[in-house]
């Protein structure tokens, strides 16, 4: 006769008592798999921390579980603009709160992300009376850090209590802003 593959149901104690534990087992109580009597630790993509990093632990095909609450991830920072800013460096921050105590201020450029990084930054003007201005294609900032404004404008007001998203365009290596004034 040829080899026979026979499936039998064993308890963990029965597995432990086998003299030769070579084989693949499934614990009938826990459903856990084990090889040669030892648990499979799992790894790579099968780690829960990888496939469910937010510990949703629910139906992955349910839209709400899949998308969750929309969030701009990452830490925030507040920048008090005591002067105009060229090549604004907010690496590591996706939420940027801008303040300026005594005067309207200008931003002429934002540090560009590395190639392949589709960077999005959310800017808030947290002042109740001080406007900011984003300056288009300004020579005061490095070429790749410059901002292209709607209509190729050289200046757009970022009014008090306004919000804008800055998105880097790797096609022309410039920042774009969602519409402001």
């Amino acid at each position, binding site marked *: 006769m040829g080899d026979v593959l026979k499936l039998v149901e064993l308890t963990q104690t029965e597995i432990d008592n086998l003299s030769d534990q070579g084989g693949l087992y499934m614990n009938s109580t826990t459903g856990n798999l084990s090889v040669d009597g030892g648990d499979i630790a799992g790894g790579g993509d099968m780690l829960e921390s990888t496939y469910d990093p937010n510990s949703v632990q629910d139906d992955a095909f349910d839209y709400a579980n899949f998308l969750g609450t929309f969030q701009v991830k990452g830490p925030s920072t507040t920048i008090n603009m005591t002067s105009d800013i060229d090549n604004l460096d907010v690496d590591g921050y996706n939420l940027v709160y801008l303040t300026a105590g005594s005067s309207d201020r200008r931003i002429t450029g934002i540090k560009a992300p590395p190639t392949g990084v589709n960077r999005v930054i959310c800017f808030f003007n947290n002042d109740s009376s001080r406007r900011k201005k984003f300056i*288009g*294609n300004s*020579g005061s900032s490095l*070429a790749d850090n410059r901002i292209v*404004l709607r*209509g190729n*404008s*050289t*200046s757009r*007001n970022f009014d008090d209590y306004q919000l804008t998203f800055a998105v880097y365009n790797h096609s022309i290596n410039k920042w774009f802003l969602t519409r402001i004034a």
Partner: protein
Amino acid sequence: MRNFYTDITGAIAFESAAPSGYSLVTGSLLDNLWIAKYEERREDGQRYYTETQASLYLSILNGTYTSTEVFDFESYTSQLADQIFKGDWYTAQTTCSDLPTSGIFDTAKKAEIQAEIDDYVTNNY
């Protein structure tokens, strides 16, 4: 008066003379830049107009002026207001200068408005 200049990196400068390394923008880009500039001036004018409206209304509420005085002011300065609202600051500069004082558009108010228009023209034309 300012015009648009560009350098080899594509930077745009709005200056009264070409900065070092810059040359005058030409063609459709120049057209688009001027369109955008007029749009900026109009938006700034609308904001200034709105701020003035709010200020006048508050002056009625706090008793500085009567509503009749403010209505007369708005009527008397309507041409000036229209020009500012449309972003024609340069034209408004002359209009304000030529407009005689009347009512609450007195010497102080005229000087205040003139100074703000002059400042805008200096920085944006």
